[in-house]
């Protein structure tokens, strides 16, 4: 088990290094010049003086060779120093440190809602005996995936903030400000979970052990909870590891629509202004989150599935 975790951590480091390197290369290959973007400062190019741009490039270290820039950035990142933002001069770690908890709250609640909603919908659809209700319930996930996130956000705002002043439209203050964005972000995710889970449950309901359980006198509810859900949840769990990445991407749109501070807004701003240190830092953090979540998902398998437990025990021996 320890060996397994160590191997996974080593693989994670390789993923992080690869993400860092690819991002650096892509940013470096872009034709635009961060110094000019900074000097331009929204003035439509009125004020970029080549001599100033040169001086600024020197100050930012952009006049060095790409290899030198890469190595110094990598070296600093290895010691936890992600540099300072070109655009604002603030330390990147501080920017991310400020943004990440906000996004963690948002995505955390969204994940909770998505799992509850997705699992609830799938369970209900698989438990019910009414074909009509099942058809209706199973039609919802495709709809949830199809509607654009920002549209859902704006509709919720119109109804529950502008017309009926229940929730605030903008900001990060308090739980109330978290509700609408989290619901918006949760909808496509819960739809995906519901779809995969419902499929798994349908298969499970047809399995022989269900018949056995029913024959032994178990109620439909007991079979649904004890047998079907547990067996059907493995694919959904795998999926969860992947969709956490989607949550971070979705945060870009949701945080913009709801004017929330956070990871997504930071990404959007940094990419627009080609703020290389910030983009690099964000990619690193996003990659780290992704790696950690997938590791956790892998570690959760044995808890749900005795077969993987046995497999792990063999490979560790």
């Amino acid at each position, binding site marked *: 088990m320890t060996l397994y975790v160590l191997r996974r951590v080593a693989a994670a480091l390789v993923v992080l290094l690869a993400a860092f390197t690819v991002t650096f290369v892509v940013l470096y290959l872009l034709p635009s010049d961060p110094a000019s973007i900074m000097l331009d400062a929204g003035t439509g190019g009125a*004020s970029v003086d080549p001599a100033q741009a040169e001086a600024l490039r020197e100050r930012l270290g952009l006049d060095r060779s790409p290899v030198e820039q890469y190595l110094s950035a990598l070296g600093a990142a290895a010691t936890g120093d992600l540099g300072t933002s070109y655009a604002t001069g603030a330390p990147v770690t501080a920017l991310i440190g400020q943004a990440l908890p906000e996004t963690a709250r948002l995505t955390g609640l969204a994940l909770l809602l998505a799992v509850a909603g997705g699992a609830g919908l799938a369970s209900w659809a698989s438990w019910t005996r009414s074909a009509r209700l099942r058809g209706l319930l199973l039609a919802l996930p495709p709809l949830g995936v199809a509607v654009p996130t920002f549209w859902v956000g704006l*509709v919720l705002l119109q109804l529950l903030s502008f017309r009926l002043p229940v929730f605030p439209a903008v900001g990060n203050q308090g739980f109330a400000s978290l509700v609408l964005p989290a619901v918006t972000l949760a909808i496509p995710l819960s739809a995906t979970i519901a779809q995969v889970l419902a499929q798994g449950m349908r298969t499970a309901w047809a399995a022989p052990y269900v018949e056995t359980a029913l024959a032994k006198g178990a109620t439909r509810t007991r079979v649904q909870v004890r047998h079907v859900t547990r067996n059907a949840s493995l694919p959904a769990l795998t999926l969860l590891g992947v969709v956490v990445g989607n949550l971070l991407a979705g945060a870009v749109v949701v945080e913009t629509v709801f004017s929330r501070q956070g990871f997504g807004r930071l990404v959007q*701003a940094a990419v627009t202004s080609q703020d290389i240190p910030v983009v690099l830092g964000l990619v690193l953090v996003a990659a780290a989150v992704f790696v950690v979540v997938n590791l956790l998902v892998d570690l959760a398998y044995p808890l749900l599935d005795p077969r993987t437990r046995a497999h792990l025990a063999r490979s560790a021996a």
Partner: protein
Amino acid sequence: MTRTTRLPVRLLAATLLAPALLLSACASDGSAGGTATGSAPAATTDARPTPGGTLRFALGASPSGVDPQQVGSNVSIYIARQLADSLTDQDLETGEIVPWLARSWDVSDDLTTFTFHLRDDVTFSDGTPLTATTVKANLDALAGELGAVAPLAASYLAGYVETRVDDEHTATVVFAEPNAQFLQATSTVSLAILSDATATADPAERLQGKVVGSGPFVLESYTQDQGAVVTRRDGYAWPSALRENDGEAYLEKIQFTVVPESGVRAGGLASDQFDAVGDVLPQDVPQVDGAGGSVLTRTNPGVAFVLQPNVSAAPLDDVAVRQALNLAIDRQQLVDTVLSDAFEPATSVLASTTPGYTDLSDELRLDAAAAAQLLDDAGWVPGEDGIRAKDGERLSIDVVYAPLFTGSQAVLELVQQQLRAVGVDLVLRQVTPGDQQALLDSGDYDTYYYNVTRADADILRTQFSTTGRNINRRAADETLDPLLTEQLATGEPGARADLVAQAQAEIVEQGLAVPLFELAQSIGVAGDVHGVAFDASSRLLFHDAWIEQD
């Protein structure tokens, strides 16, 4: 609960559809260009201002910082302008320069030395007094290293030699060359005067909020991408001669929040979550009006939105083609169809609010027949697909633009249709704001679409002189270049206006710009908010602003 609780079907349908219409507005809808010069549409002045209260303002985009001298975008300046005062102020109606921190000034006949006599009662919010040494510290820094990150200020100080401290409250600024634009520049936020300590502080820290000014408000907090809070400066008593309120600001606090989505800004204003909002888009105006608010607008001075041709390559090296473009465009239709009442069609290369603007609407009339005639005479004959051609080359030109201003794409698509009617094919090339500079440097474009805000006609020199950015990529000439240089050395306003008028006429006649429309700021304010004003560069001022108290 103030509105209907039972939603009628029609209302519900409208609600559901509205966001879909906003699709295009989702990403960024910051206004283009840097700044605007402004007038406060007179609020209903029969009511007496009541002090107190917090004004909640929704900004359309993220500020780049709060240092008045470094920032360039409108939203940054909305905050930064409240924190600091300038040596002079500019009347937005007349363009006249009036006293602010400087009681008076003397300008040498050759326009190289400017002596400012400062007020002696001004203090910064850290308690230190304003002296001639402070002015010197500020200008020395801007002409030196700080200039690299404060490009607008640095460009105003081109040719700066020194600031002499004549006595405690007299400072003389010396330039190597005549600098007629400098006096107006001292009224801008870019040359606002900050405390001695701020002048020597680290530029990055200043941008993040380490700024001490003498303005009517003091920065309480600033969070990147989120907003800022400013509080009233106690004992403020040195506003410019243009402000109605000669004492402390009425508002206790202004809370700026970044709200990127325009529909959310308007909805927030209508549902009393904001008191004022920036960048109101045409489709949001009814919602603001419907909630009892109003939309304040002002045209930005400076270079209007133009297509600026690259004359170094075919087909725009032919002056006849460029002239034809100017005659083929229906500017009124641009404004009526895809913009709103807030905008005006361009009637010169300069916007009508720029001091020195001259009306060239005759030259910029719509005359499709004349345009076609010009193209016929130049040898461009209509081809099979309706697009003209000459020697096998189709008359196809591209336009490079960055979507800084929300309406740009719609405007350019309409221009495309209008040009097509006379047989010219316009190809839209959208680039990111970051990429446009590289593209301009490469010269790989037929026309460049943009605007620049500046309340002084010297902006023509920056944009059209061959010694400036030379977006036209033209060779130095004996007509336009001398006019642009000479106006900078001409102090007498009438004579300078003459030169500037000639330059505008020359630019239009040579087709060095195809003016389209004038950018305008539109600010939504709730019905109980009064006195929100524009300054001469179309940035907002809150010193006279107040909210009706219950």
